[in-house]
Structure formats: C-alpha cells, structure tokens
C-alpha cells in the first residue's frame, strides 16, 4: 500500500487522541518510532521466513538510491558515504544491490575481506568488485583507477535517512496494520502513566 511516513504518523496520532484526548504527541516522535518498529518487523519477518526455507526480505522494503558519488580515500581505496543508516540483517542482505546502471551488481563481502583473503585465488572475486560496510562508509574492494565508476546506485532496506517524510513508500497492508498497532500500544502505555503525581497524600 502506497503511503507516506507522515500519513502513518497522522493515523497513529488520531488513534492516540481518541484514546486519551489530552495527549500531546509530536508526530516526529511517532515517525521515529515507526522507523524503529518497522525495522523490528522486517527483521522478525526475515527470521520467520527461515521457517519456510525462504530467508528473503519482502521486495517492497527495498528502495533504490541513485547517483551516489564514489570517493577516493587513498590509492585503490574507493568508497561511498552511506546515504542512510541500514538495518543489521544476517549476511548483509539489508543491501540488495550496489552497482552502476549497467551490468551486474557488485559482490557483498564481509568486513575484513581484504586482509583475510589477501593473496588467495578468491580475492579477485572472479574479476568483480566487492563492497563492505565500514562505519558510515561503504568500502569497495578490487576497485581501481581503471574500473571505478563516478557514481553508484544502491538498493537497501528502508533507508529512512534518504527518504523525506512525504516521500511515497510502499508498505504491505498487513505490515501497516501491525506497525500502527505496535506504535499505538507503545505510546498509549506511556501516556497512561500519570506524570504529575506527587506522593504527598493529596489527590491530584
């Protein structure tokens, strides 16, 4: 279902007001919670899918970000700045594809690849370019002055850092219901705690 982050936050905000009319919840706070809860749902669904031997993330959670400039750190050390924080999913499946418009995508490799595989036949990745996450950067291996592109595209799970609150996002309907319920429950529980109660023997 096509929606936006602000629409989801608005929906949750309305439900909270119906529950507690005097509640004042900032929509930015709700959106942040939506991000976090969505991440949890995606991760849980990935682990659930292992039960049916699938181990896949629903394709609608992946978003392409295009034209990220490739930077050079030192000789034959190329990298890009990650356009958004990503989730921590097993075997790096939170990033579906890194590459240029043409040809095959680059190969995901574990952090530490360049040292462990140095000198081995597999280090060349059969002539392909590898990438691995390193802090806020995405480092490339086997990239040099002859094969480095000027920009790359990246397709990753829920890159909220690169999406505006009014950008259209596609969230499966069942996940949308789940996310609204989760955030709502979380906030209502918090709001129901009386915050101005003073233990002085006088009723509020």
């Amino acid at each position, binding site marked *: 279902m096509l929606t936006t982050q602000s629409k989801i936050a608005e929906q949750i905000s309305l439900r909270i007001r119906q529950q507690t009319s005097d509640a004042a919840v900032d929509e930015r706070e709700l959106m942040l919670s939506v991000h976090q809860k969505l991440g949890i749902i995606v991760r849980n669904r990935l682990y659930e899918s292992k039960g049916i031997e699938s*181990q896949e993330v629903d394709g609608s959670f992946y978003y392409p970000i295009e034209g990220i400039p490739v930077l050079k750190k030192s000789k034959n050390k190329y990298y890009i700045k990650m356009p958004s924080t990503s989730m921590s999913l097993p*075997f790096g499946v939170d990033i579906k594809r890194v590459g240029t418009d043409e040809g095959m995508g680059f190969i*995901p*490799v574990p952090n530490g*690849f360049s040292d462990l595989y140095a000198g081995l036949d597999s280090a060349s990745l*059969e*002539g392909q370019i*590898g990438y691995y996450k390193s802090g806020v950067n995405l480092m490339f291996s086997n990239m040099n002055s002859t094969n480095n592109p000027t920009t790359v595209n990246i397709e990753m799970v829920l890159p909220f850092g690169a999406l505006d609150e009014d950008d259209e996002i596609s969230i499966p309907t069942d996940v949308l219901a789940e996310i609204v319920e989760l955030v709502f429950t979380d906030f209502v529980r918090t709001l129901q705690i009386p915050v101005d109660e003073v233990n002085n023997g006088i009723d509020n």
Partner: protein
Amino acid sequence: MRKLEEIIREFYIEDLHLSQTDERYPVFLQIAITGLKELNYDLKSIVTEVTLTVNDNDTVDLPNNYIDYMMIGVVSGGTISSLGLNTQIANKAKDNCGNISGVISDPTSADVGSFSSSYSDDGQDTGGDFGIGGGGNSNGTYNIFKQEGYIALQNCSADKIVLRYLSTIEQVDGNFLVEEFLVDAIKSFIWHRYIRRMRSYGGGDKQMAEIEFNRKKKMAVKRGSRFSITEFMNAYRSGYRSSPNI
C-alpha cells in the same frame, strides 16, 4: 567450459533458493576453487599438453603450473612416441647464478649408466652398455626434478619434447573455467564444505552432504573418462585381429 562465478550464482538459486548474493559469496567462491583443485587432481582427462624446447644441457624447464606428468615424448611421424623413465639420471649442478650447468659427477666413482666398456681402443662403439639395465628406450630417457623445476634427458636427440601433464587450475581473463561435467560436483562440494564444521547442522546432514559429493565426484570422473562405442570397437578389434586366410 563454464565460469566459476556462474556456478556460484547457480548454487545460490538452486541450493539456497535465494534471489540475491550475500556476504557468503567469497566463502563459497573460495570453497569452489578448493573443490575445483581437488577434482582436478582426480580427473586424468583434464590434462595440459605443451611442446617444450630442449636446452643445450639436455634439460627441459618445467612449466610453472606443473603438478604431475602423464606422458613425456617426442613427435615422430605425426605421432607422439614416449621417452623412457630413467631414475638413475643424476641431478645437474647449478652455477653461482642458480642456472643448471652440468651433471654432478665424480669421475673416480662408479656412476651407474656411465660404465664405459662400450668403446674399442680405436674409439668405436662396441654396443655393450652394461649396467644400464633393461627397459631402455630408443627415443631417449628422462628423469624429472620437480623441486629444481626441470626434466633431465639422456640419449634424446630431439630438440623439442611433448609434455602431457596435470596442471594447476589457472584463471582465464580473471575467471576460473570449469568443465561442464564438474559443475554438479562443485556445487555438492560447496555445500559439503560449508556445513562441515557448523553446529547448526546435524551429523546426518553432514554425512549426506559428503556422500552426495563423493557420488557426484565419481560421476564426474566416469563422465570424464568414458569412451565411445567407436573407441571401444577400435580397441577390441586391435586386440583380436584375425590371421589372414591363405
């Protein structure tokens, strides 16, 4: 011939049922390369053949990718005639630069193969080389010094020899190429090696993976060494040639 990276991607699709590669790719690639080498040792059908020039000192430099030889011979009349193995051929001495210079020999000692009772007083060969032993080869003999990286020849007049040998696997344009009938065996090897030390897989799974690999390997060896009906008939007929009726 297939590219190894294609086989890895097929493994992702067929065995792991995934729609994208992940961080295990280099692990699978490394295992596949090991598997390819492992299978290469057993498949005598995958051999390399080169023609090598004989050096002035009766030696031939071994190729860098040499593992073991199948046959050493000379081309004679369009066919290859084998040289004979002579393990008594001595190692050559090296000069200060590490180049092979001559035969390490002590003229005072009795050197096997150089018993010189075959020349008459006037220098003519009398034909009797005692001590060489049977099994001599009219094309010449050889001995391989793998550590030193050369083949020593004796009594070989040819200026080129043919070496048919088992070589290490090499990349072509940055890719390992795989024989078609090894593809399944490599996929089985990847899975067998990948789960071999994993606690999340039971002993039964690991055993089954190993059995499957061995089965696929046997099949690949059979496919690589099978011969056609025509070849069979040729071999059969050459062994049972009927005598002419007079």
